[in-house]
């Protein structure tokens, strides 16, 4: 069965059709990479799925529930976790409090006024931090963390509501190559253990080809290819959008 189904999704900004009639599916447990050059519409697509942007037309379905028109927090409650392109935490809290906040929200305890929040779900939060290798930093102020560590904490937060689908917009942006690989390997291991489906965008082709089960390619708002690593690598249209055709500028322009 399909976990997530995108049907004819479109979004324009002014005259620019950022996402144009895009349709695709994610199957349960699938690790799906969404790639494309800058400005292809990847982030727009993401932000429509997570509810941050309203789509102009088209539908998004998750396990038989329609997501279009829902708010980000409602989508989260349906079991969809997410991480942000630019990672950040709640800066006035410690690392573990960040995770506890998500756990408290998941347990519908936000409006409680009495018991100290620091005592709630601490064990579970430590467990999640251990899974991303951040247990030792649990009681440090989160604003002191290095960027790579912030990404890990964000992953722990995203896993707090036991999501069945994880949306990751450029999870490794701003990281060193070694860190990138480690983080995606970690995500891959966690999702296989838990049977989570993942949709992620990524600039590093090494990461994409090494880990993705399937790859879809966006260019200028349109979906131009869908398949495994080899199919994508050999697709002439994909090559064209990444390397160009050499015909964009004429010789006279280039020499002038």
């Amino acid at each position, binding site marked *: 069965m399909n976990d997530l189904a995108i049907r004819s999704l479109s979004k324009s900004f002014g005259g620019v059709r950022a996402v144009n009639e895009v349709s695709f599916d994610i199957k349960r447990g699938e690790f799906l990479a969404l790639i494309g050059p800058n400005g292809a519409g990847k982030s727009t697509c993401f932000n429509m799925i997570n509810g941050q942007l309203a789509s102009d037309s088209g539908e998004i379905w998750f396990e038989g529930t329609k997501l279009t028109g829902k708010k980000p927090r409602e989508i989260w409650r349906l079991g969809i976790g997410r991480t942000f392109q630019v990672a950040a935490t*709640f*800066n006035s809290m410690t690392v573990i409090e960040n995770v506890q906040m998500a756990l408290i929200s998941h347990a519908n305890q*936000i409006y409680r006024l009495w018991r100290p929040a620091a005592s709630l779900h601490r064990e579970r939060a430590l467990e999640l931090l251990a899974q991303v290798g951040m247990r030792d930093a649990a009681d440090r102020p989160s604003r002191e963390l290095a960027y790579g560590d912030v990404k890990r904490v964000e992953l722990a937060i995203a896993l707090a509501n036991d999501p069945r689908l994880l949306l990751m917009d450029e999870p490794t942006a701003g990281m060193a190559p070694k860190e990138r690989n480690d983080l995606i390997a970690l995500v891959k291991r966690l999702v296989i253990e838990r049977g989570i489906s993942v949709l992620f965008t990524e600039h590093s082709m090494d990461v994409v080809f090494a880990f993705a089960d399937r790859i879809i390619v966006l260019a200028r708002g349109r979906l131009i290819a869908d398949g495994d690593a080899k199919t994508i690598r050999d697709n002439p249209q994909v090559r064209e959008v990444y390397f160009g055709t050499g015909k964009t500028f004429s010789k006279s322009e280039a020499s002038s």
Partner: protein
Amino acid sequence: MSFNAFLFQAINGLSTASGLFFVAAGLSLIFGVTRIVNIAHGSLYMIGTYIAYSFATKLGGAFGFWGGIVATALLVGLIGAAIEIVLLRRIYRAPELFQLLATFALVLVINDATLWIWGPEDLLGPRAPGLTGSIEVLGRRLPTYDIFLIFIGPFVLWMLHLALAKTRFGRLMRAATQDREMVGALGVNQAMLFTGVFALGALLAGLGGALQIAREPATLATDLIVIGDAFVVVVVGGMGSISGAYLAAVIIAEVKALCIGLGIVHFGALSVNFSKLTLVAEFLVMAAVLIARPYGLLGREQVAVRSVAEPEEPMRPATPTVKIAGLVLLVVLVCLPLIAKNSPYTLVLGVDVLIAVLFATSLHFIMGPGGMHSFGHAAYFGLGAYGAALLVKWFAAPMGLALAAAPVLALCGALLFGWFAVRLSGVYLAMLTLAFAQIVWAAVFQWEGLTGGSNGILGIWPAAPFDSRGPFYFLTLALAALGVLLLRKFLFAPFGYAMRAGRDSPLRAEAIGLDVKRVHWLAFAIAGAVCGVAGGLFAFAKGSISAETIGVGRSIDGLVMVLLGGIQTLSGPIVGASVFAVLQDTIMRSTEYWRALLGGIILLLVLAFPSGIVGGFLKLVSRRKAAS
């Protein structure tokens, strides 16, 4: 009312609109480029009226009047440039809240300086030479000077437009309004640009003030009245938009004129006196506009300016040392009646301090952890005070019931106002909360039949056994301690964490299932209710309550208390309120110029101790620790 009379009021409104436009345009220009909301803009207008008065009376004649107006505008422009260079330049990178406070401190200083130079009397200027007559319009007499004012507004608007469109300075200003960082990156001398803009804005304010002397006397109350009006105009028109400012000025002036024109209207058995609505009308317009168009009629959503405020330390539960210190403090406070047996005034001051602490702590609750900078916390103080006082006055309610009603009424007000306020942020939220507080104040001030207006309600004395100093002190201490501890408890509970999460990053908070607006709305309501208790206690402590005590001044006092103690610490508002209340008490009794002194203290605070008393102390301690 006849159609002609209505039209006449509308024409009259246009001449008022010009005056409003001058102040608002300057305010808007300055905000657009420097991102500073200059509360002292009304003060610049005010000194404009005084300086023009001096020119017109000392020099006399047409030259003294008309030449004086031009000279005044230039002079106020120079004063503006001086203020920018000496003060504002140091705080461009400070958090928004500090900028607001610094300019408010200027209001206090300028007001006392004016008092010192020109004295407390209202000064009525001469009539405008050459424009003393009037012409007949629609069967009524309209002064020619008003007609002159009607035309000069649009004329200045047109000139400003030309200047913005055609000159290099104007282009730079527009560019800086859109993207200040980019303009800086392109090598533009920002210091010069900012000084220039501030001088231009001040010049417009001075011009507006100078033009008024032929219509209204120069008075010391002008500054806050004008800044209130100007804020409304700028916020309604959209921050940074000159055309918006004119449009809004016309709308506000017309609505006011309409209210005066309508007078008393009977709706069946109900009769409404619309002319009494003028004080509220503009704030109602503003509230309506902000709700429908959060960035004003012609405004745009603002690009967030990067704040360089120091990040906040995570909240840690009280260490044993802190707990012991708190306990010792409580014991000392309980023993205070014994310690101060020989100076009964100590207990009176003690009650004042405790009420201030409760007031400041409730404000800090939404300002610090909630990140909502309310400029109208006096509203909930006032609702609490009047809730209690009205019950006593009209229903002879016992004290217990009246004190219980105080937080309930404040809670209702906070629920209503908060619902709108949490939909905005930053300066707009500050202005909307201010508007709501002004509505409460104006309602109290004008509804004389119910509230006694400016005379207030007298004879709200506590009942036995609290009718003497000692027991009432204990009651205040108990309620204040309970309120402060409850709010602290809430902050450590999941709800308090959710508040901070929503402040730190609304986007992320929503992405983990938090309804940020709802959380902040409830926080607003809780703070309002606790503040209502402070208001109720205040009414009984003083035995009376009047409109004056719940004005904008009290809201600002609250802000100063919180910042004085340090906004990023939980004990900050307690320390800040105590120090402020004691200081205010001693300064007010020792000098006539206490406003200037208070302003000086605020400026010192903003420039030298931006993290407040407790924040500064903690930093000192941590530096010691690091050194050893």
